[in-house]
């Protein structure tokens, strides 16, 4: 589609809908500027030059270095903590433990208040109680990292252990049904699904299991804290700067404005760079020492003190009629959680929105364990939920002797199957068709084990990918326009490699009618207007709407400033549009004045305007989701059981794509993490000690170069008329469906169904 056609189509769609027209148009005359183009990352040169300073790299005078001791029992109390030897070791500044740590209030846990960001509500180093194996129990500060690391080994700590719940099986005996799963009801029932299942002509009823995962961003979690009187500056690696600031302020009894969080670069987040104990301990230790403190978790420390994705056991039961349509769709199960967090791993979400069925039953439970609080990790819920659901569909397709793509076509719903809402945009069938043609799906043998190359068995698998559209409430953007025609767009949001800063500069340039190199997007600092968290693939929508609102406010300011001598005199903001570095009357295109001219006449160097984003009402009205299809070809070695992914294609339907280059990387990055989930990732939890047994990158395997084939991605690119810019965030959809696509391909290659991740070679022998 040409840019012009697309612009016209979007304007038309918007005018028919209940979202503001300006959501889908930008500067009318400049069409969409560079939006959609493969623009190179604006922070790229700094990063390839090694000149971007991450949280552990801020130079400071008088800096002290921290090392952390972690508990070695899962529950109980510290019986004795002897710091004498550590304190007298060379270079040691102090040892902090529960006896001398500053008194802190309990951490406001996420969801307990709008800006609450703590990942656990447990007290942070305030008493001798131990709640998980790996809990920080002491912090040593020294003049160098080497001195701190040595001194921490001199601490003598003994514990009194108490009985702990560290077996998932035992925990399930007391599983509970939470009141809500995020903002959605825990259970949905349409008709009597169990009865419909019992009476169905074709049925499957299966259990699937997924293990714990760790985000393992390559940048270690780190924080650098400096106090000036009662004002704290925290250099953090953060995907939630405002929530971190508010939460730390609450704990230290400060005002939010007294806690300045700075996080311009984040070396990978994936849900893991939120507020954990290490930032709080860094701030506390800096306060106690009266000196700046840097705390970098070791890789082991990341496994001990930062939670990951939890383990799940899921049941999927499908009852089908002879034509393949569903009489019953059941998805239930349980995830391990704790009593001190609220992250139930929403694995039943895909089953609520993907397929039509006469009766539906979804519900999920949590089983409380003594472990580090689990948390959101890329595609929380959806990544492991689609593993179970999409494997089950493959199994049903086989029972029906139907092609798995044909089965999904027959299950395509007209409206959201559980909420009954209209879809804002859904082109999943088209994504299947286009992807299948591109991937050569017709070459797949319906019979497993039918294709081989020497000792390698070949197979193909497919699965649906899906992730909700979210837009976070709150957030505001400010635009400062200077007399030389440059714009500085500010919002305390986050760039962890998604391309956010580049895409929003593209957006603002298009919206203001300015060349891209005249626009800078400033982010990652709580001194800027408040942003929203980088989570739930929501930043694109959340920031876009704030920038749209700020542009409107700026237009009003500019018209006020332009006054009576301007060719625009007398016009209201709704009667003008941004264009060619200025404002133009929509009805009379000759009436134009540049920003430079408006500012010049008023003798102003700059002008700014700030506006808040309106609440996300679009999600109340519509069922809004991203979709995709994952196509996988594997080779499985018949002798060793080794699985190699030989080809992979993702065919996506996520609204308009805003930057073809960074979007491609986002999709591929998600898919690659999905290959890890499918084939290797497993944070091994020892059910005798409650301790993670492979806390290193040598033993927790993530995909490396050799594991990754050339991946292809494609997209429908059809704008969602109910979403700002017609676009959806795409950070998480890429990982969804991958586990099932790989498992289904392994089945197609070998005839072996693996229903427990990861699909390691021992399971195939």
């Amino acid at each position, binding site marked *: 589609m040409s840019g012009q056609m697309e612009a016209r189509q979007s304007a038309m769609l918007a005018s028919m809908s209940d979202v503001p027209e300006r959501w889908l148009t930008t500067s009318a005359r400049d069409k969409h500027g560079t939006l959609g183009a493969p623009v190179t990352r604006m922070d790229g040169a700094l990063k390839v030059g090694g000149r971007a300073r991450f949280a552990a790299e801020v130079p400071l005078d008088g800096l002290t270095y921290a090392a952390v001791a972690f508990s070695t029992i899962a529950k109980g109390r510290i019986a004795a903590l002897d710091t004498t030897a550590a304190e007298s070791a060379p270079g040691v500044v102090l040892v902090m433990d529960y006896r001398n740590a500053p008194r802190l209030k309990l951490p406001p846990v996420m969801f307990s208040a709008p800006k609450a960001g703590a990942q656990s509500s447990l007290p942070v180093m305030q008493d001798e109680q131990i709640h998980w194996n790996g809990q920080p129990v002491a912090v040593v500060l020294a003049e160098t990292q080497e001195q701190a690391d040595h001194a921490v080994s001199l601490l003598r700590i003994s514990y009194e252990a108490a009985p702990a719940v560290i077996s998932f099986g035992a925990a399930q005996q007391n599983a509970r049904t939470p009141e809500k799963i995020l903002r959605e009801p825990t259970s949905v029932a349409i008709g009597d699904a169990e009865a419909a299942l019992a009476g169905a002509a074709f049925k499957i009823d299966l259990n699937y299991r997924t293990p714990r995962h760790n985000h393992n961003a390559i*940048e270690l979690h780190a924080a650098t804290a400096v106090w000036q009187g009662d004002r704290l500056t925290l250099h953090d690696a953060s995907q939630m700067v405002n929530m971190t600031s508010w939460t730390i302020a609450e704990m230290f009894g400060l005002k939010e404005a007294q806690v300045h969080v700075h996080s311009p670069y984040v070396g990978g987040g994936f849900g893991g760079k939120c507020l954990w104990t290490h930032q709080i301990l860094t701030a506390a230790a800096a306060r106690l020492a009266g000196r700046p403190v840097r705390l970098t978790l070791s890789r082991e420390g990341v496994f001990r003190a930062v939670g990951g994705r939890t383990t799940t056991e899921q049941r999927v039961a499908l009852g089908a009629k002879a034509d393949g349509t569903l009489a019953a769709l059941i998805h239930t199960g349980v995830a391990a959680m704790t009593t001190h967090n609220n992250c139930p791993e929403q694995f039943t979400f895909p089953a609520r929105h993907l397929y039509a069925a006469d009766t539906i039953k979804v519900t999920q439970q949590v089983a409380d364990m003594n472990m580090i609080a689990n948390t959101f990790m890329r595609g929380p819920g959806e990544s492991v939920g689609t593993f179970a659901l999409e494997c089950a569909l493959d199994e049903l397709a086989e029972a029906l002797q139907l092609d798995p793509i044909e089965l999904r076509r027959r299950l395509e719903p007209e409206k959201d199957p559980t909420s009954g809402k209209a879809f804002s945009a859904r082109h999943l069938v088209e994504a299947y068709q286009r992807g299948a043609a591109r991937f050569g799906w017709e070459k797949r043998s319906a019979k497993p084990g039918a294709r081989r190359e020497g000792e390698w068995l070949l197979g193909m698998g497919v699965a649906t990918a899906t992730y909700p559209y979210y837009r976070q409430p709150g957030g505001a953007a400010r635009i400062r326009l200077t007399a030389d025609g440059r714009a500085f767009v500010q919002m305390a949001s986050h760039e962890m490699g998604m391309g956010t800063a580049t895409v929003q500069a593209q957006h603002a340039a298009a919206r203001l009618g300015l060349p891209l190199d005249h626009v800078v997007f400033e982010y990652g600092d709580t001194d800027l207007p408040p942003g929203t968290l980088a989570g739930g693939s929501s930043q694109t929508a959340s920031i876009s709407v704030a920038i749209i609102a700020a542009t409107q406010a700026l237009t009003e300011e500019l018209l006020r400033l332009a006054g009576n001598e301007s060719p625009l005199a007398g016009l209201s903001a709704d009667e003008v549009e941004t264009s060619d570095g200025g404002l133009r009357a929509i009805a009379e295109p000759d009436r134009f004045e540049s920003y430079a001219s408006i500012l010049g006449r008023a003798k102003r160097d700059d002008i700014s305007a700030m506006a808040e984003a309106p609440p996300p009402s679009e999600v109340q009205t519509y069922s809004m989701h991203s979709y995709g299809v994952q196509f996988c070809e594997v080779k499985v070695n018949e002798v060793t059981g080794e699985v190699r992914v030989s080809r992979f294609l993702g065919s996506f339907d996520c609204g308009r794509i805003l930057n073809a280059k960074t979007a491609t990387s986002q999709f591929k990055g998600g898919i690659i993490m999905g290959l890890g989930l499918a084939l290797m990732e497993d944070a091994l939890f020892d059910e005798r000690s409650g301790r993670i047994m492979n806390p290193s990158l040598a033993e927790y395997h993530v995909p490396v170069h*050799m594991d990754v084939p050339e991946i292809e991605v494609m997209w429908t690119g059809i704008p969602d008329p109910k979403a700002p810019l017609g676009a959806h965030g795409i950070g998480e959809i890429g990982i969804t469906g991958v586990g099932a696509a790989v498992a289904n391909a392994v089945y197609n290659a070998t005839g072996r169904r693996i229903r427990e991740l990861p699909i390691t070679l021992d399971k195939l022998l």
Partner: protein
Amino acid sequence: MRFIVNGQHVEAVFDLRTSLLDLLRDHLGLSGSKKGCNQGACGACTVLVDGERINACLALAVQYQDRAINTVEGLSEPGALHPLQSAFLEHDGFQCGYCTPGQLCSAIAMAAELSRGVPSAVTVDLAAETIALSHDELRERMSGNLCRCGAYNGIVEAITETFSPQKSAQEAA
């Protein structure tokens, strides 16, 4: 102790337990070399010593007196990028950028290893004088450099274009 870092002679006084990585990052202010594990498992700390790639986190700084150490900061001046750095931008060979300095240094030394005929686990002809940069050779030899963002395809394209321009032109055709 004296070191030659990015062509400059520098002196530093430090604890003898200090790794080369911590010397660079904490004592010399060269934070371009990254720390992803401090255990030799991720490659983020890869630097060049006399042209060979090493994991700086596993190297004691005292062992590298008077050796020529090159880090990502030494690959180029700001504004005039090394061709491999430009290719990383062009092919989006990174997202967060944290593994990138290690990938860059590692790739430069890898290209030199190929031209010297140093074999890898996937090399067929162990006696060859030089080894061609195939897709498998490249991925095998770069597998010590983890990228959790999953920028692997872009990294492979950037390295191929820089060190085997012929091959990438053929692929594009």
